[in-house]
């Protein structure tokens, strides 16, 4: 059965670090329509923050560009897409390894992808060197069973 989209949103912003908070708060506010728990919201915020930060510091590095964030709500599930037209990733598999970073000198810990994988249910990464990177992550939002 085809999943039915309940709602959809898209935001675009300049790759300025001040927008990291804006992005995660926007997605969290949108996700609240699915009635998630506090923990689920915290997971979504952290994963969005990781993805957007990566676009800003790795994708665009010292240049400036547009970061796009899309979110789609399904019954009991949110899908979030974060994309940039930045540097791209040469070896995606290697990049997804825990502790792998190309910016150790800038105090990056190489844990971003690991956190996204752990805090969300699914993560896919597409990237072309010189063209940019798109990551799509989904999370199931459990239905609270309330008994009266």
């Amino acid at each position: 059965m085809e999943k039915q989209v309940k709602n959809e949103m898209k935001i675009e912003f300049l790759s300025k670090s001040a927008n990291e908070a804006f992005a995660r708060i926007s997605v969290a506010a949108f996700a609240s329509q699915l009635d998630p728990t506090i923990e689920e919201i915290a997971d979504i915020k952290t994963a969005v923050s990781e993805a957007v930060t990566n676009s800003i510091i790795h994708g665009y590095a010292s240049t400036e560009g547009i970061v796009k964030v899309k979110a789609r709500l399904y019954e009991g599930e949110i899908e979030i897409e974060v994309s940039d037209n930045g540097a791209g990733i040469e070896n995606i598999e290697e990049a997804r390894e825990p502790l792998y970073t190309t910016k150790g000198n800038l105090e990056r810990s190489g844990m971003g992808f690991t956190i996204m994988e752990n805090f969300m249910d699914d993560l896919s990464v597409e990237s072309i060197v010189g063209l940019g990177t798109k990551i799509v992550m989904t999370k199931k939002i459990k239905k609270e069973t309330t008994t009266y």
Partner: protein
Amino acid sequence: MNVKHFMEDRLLVFEITEELDHHACEIIRRRADYEIQRFMPKRVVFDFNRVVFMDSAGIGLVIGRYKTVNGFGGKLEMMNVKDNLRRVFEMSGILKMIPVIDSLEKEKIS
């Protein structure tokens, strides 16, 4: 971030009030390094009591200061690491090298 100096113990406490993302960590790092270099503490404590959000940037911030402080023989600790922060720290393995304390217990050191 509020910075507290305890002169007699050569203790420096960073009480963090921001959301610890890449943006905030850049600012905090500069201030923390300035205070550390100026004060050369024996002991540095990051107090996370007021932190409501942290991503991987927080790991980088703590590891970076740990290396600096360790470099001149000081000690770094973390305090009030609540569950949401602990989950992020746990993944990185830094809880194995940096002690998490419940209170400052200033009288015990010195």
